């Protein structure tokens, strides 16, 4: 039963959101034109000279672009691999702890870093990895020369990967813990009667039980291979490690906004988001095929 006043009310509800989307989502999309111009703020988009694909050609010829791309992929893929591993191992181990109170307390602690911003955690990370910090103190005890982690092109990426995994592993484990709680306890009892030891039970029951979740999370991570983590790197990097830590997102911010090369910044940003969208749509497709799950 369609009533006219219902239609009016529903349109009215949509109105404020649509106006805001029009201004702050759809209007900026026209700004993409700048990627094909030599944009000059004094002339505006309408009167700036067209340059065709020049910005994109320049981007590929830039000496830094290869390095920035490699940095982005290396850091992002490193984070995905290590975090998947650590998160699953942590979830499996936590699942073996039967003391409810201890389990809850541990969960409360390990979820916490996820809710703190990188602005705050940057100080924490600098403290720990500083020349006289605890990590170097341990190295010294082992007779290893102290390392300038935050200023070393050899070590900085590893610091980024490890600290990012540290921030997220606890919270990331939630999805696996949910999957683990869905495994039928009867299976374990049956396996125990058949004489399967603890390790065998984890291998033959627990892991297959959470395999769909592992697959889904891995597929959904696909778009993240371009997402090396702007907030973390922006708050931790310094000119000394620019060579190994500068990623697409930090580059776009610096060149596009700080140095005001609007056209070049927009061009790089555009290419990055197009690849990002393709990756996201593919992840959605693959997930739908493999696990029957879709985001949209």
């Amino acid at each position, binding site marked *: 039963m*369609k*009533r006219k006043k*219902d*239609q009016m*009310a*529903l*349109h009215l*509800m*949509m109105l*404020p*959101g649509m106006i*805001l*989307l029009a201004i*702050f989502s*759809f*209007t*900026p*999309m*026209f*700004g*993409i034109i*700048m990627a094909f111009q030599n944009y000059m703020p004094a002339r505006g988009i309408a009167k700036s000279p067209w340059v065709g694909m020049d910005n994109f050609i320049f981007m590929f010829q830039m000496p830094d672009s290869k390095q920035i791309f490699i940095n982005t992929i290396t850091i992002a893929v490193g984070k995905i691999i290590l975090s998947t591993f650590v998160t699953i191992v942590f979830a499996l*181990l*936590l699942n073996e*702890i039967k003391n409810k109170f201890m389990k809850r307390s541990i969960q409360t*602690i*390990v979820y*916490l*870093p996820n*809710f703190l911003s990188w*602005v*705050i955690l940057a*100080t*924490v*990370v*600098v*403290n720990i990895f500083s*020349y*006289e910090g605890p990590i170097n103190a341990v190295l010294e005890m082992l007779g290893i020369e102290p390392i300038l982690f935050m*200023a070393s092109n050899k070590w900085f990426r590893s610091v980024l990967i490890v600290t990012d995994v540290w921030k997220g*592993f*606890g*919270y990331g484990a*939630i999805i696996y813990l949910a999957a683990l709680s869905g495994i039928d306890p009867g299976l374990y009892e049956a396996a125990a*009667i058949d004489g399967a030891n*603890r390790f065998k039970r984890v291998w033959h029951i627990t892991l297959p039980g959470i395999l769909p979740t592992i697959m889904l999370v891995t597929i959904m991570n696909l778009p993240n291979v371009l997402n090396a983590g702007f*907030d973390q790197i*922006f*708050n931790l990097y*310094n*000119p*000394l490690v620019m060579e190994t830590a500068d990623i697409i997102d930090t580059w776009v*911010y610096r060149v*596009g*906004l700080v140095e005001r090369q*609007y056209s070049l*910044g*927009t061009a790089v940003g555009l290419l990055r988001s197009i690849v990002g*969208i393709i990756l996201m749509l593919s992840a959605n497709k693959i997930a739908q095929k493999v696990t029957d799950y879709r*985001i949209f």
Partner: protein
Amino acid sequence: MIEKRAFGGIVADIIIWIIVGALALSCLMPLMNIVAISLSDNAAVSANLVNIFPIGFNISSYQEIMGDKQFWRSFGISVLRVVLGLSVNITLLVLTAYPLSKSPKFFARQKVYMSLVLFAMLFSGGLIPTFMVVNSLKLTNTIWALILPGAVPLGNVILLMNAFRGVPKSLEEAAMIDGGSQWVILLKVFLPVVKPTLAAVTLFTIVGHWNDYFSALVYITDTANYPLQTYIQQLNVDITEVTDPDKLEQLARISSRTLNSAKIVVSTIPLLMIYPFMQKYFVSGIVVGSVKE
């Protein structure tokens, strides 16, 4: 338990406890370290003696913060931003998600709106064009620059839309027969049912607004108007812009560390206050978070 714990079981238990315990401590100790530094004597901090307990316990850095006008100004701006941002986000969230949850049979233009929302979710003009729009609307340097560009929380709209679809049809039909308008039905019938989803979204929205430092960095040019996270981010900048390794170490060591740590602790307290309430919603939060990006 069916089987008796064998010796191997006990050894395995110990190993599990050690690993899980170490991981938990790795999350707790760095944070305790910051608190300890903030409560320690400058000399002990400079000499890197402070671990997880304060040395030369004193609260002078907290006393100094008490009189720091800029710190409290930024704190106030952050609070105002959370209040305004949350009200705007939740209002638009409910108003947008509700019509979208209707079937195209009931709401004739549902499909058009839905495709607009999905389009906005997938594509964006990017950082620079958005900056230019905000700039040309003369919103730069106002608190609205931090709130309006993200006013419609698209990921959460989809989440709440699905929650609305889960509301039993019979409830709605009964209300319609009573002659209630869509506004009344939304407020009286639908909102009470989706309260848990709204609560989860509310908490995660608060954290998002409180933690965001970046929009102010882009849109606020007068540093006196920075919210707290951007203010603290600026404290770190002098460290990240040094090019000489020795100088970097030196700067990290100077005595402002106790003061900066105290600022970090105070800025985290509001989060710790809502943290216990969030525990209930962690699982649904995963969903909120995953569609948000």
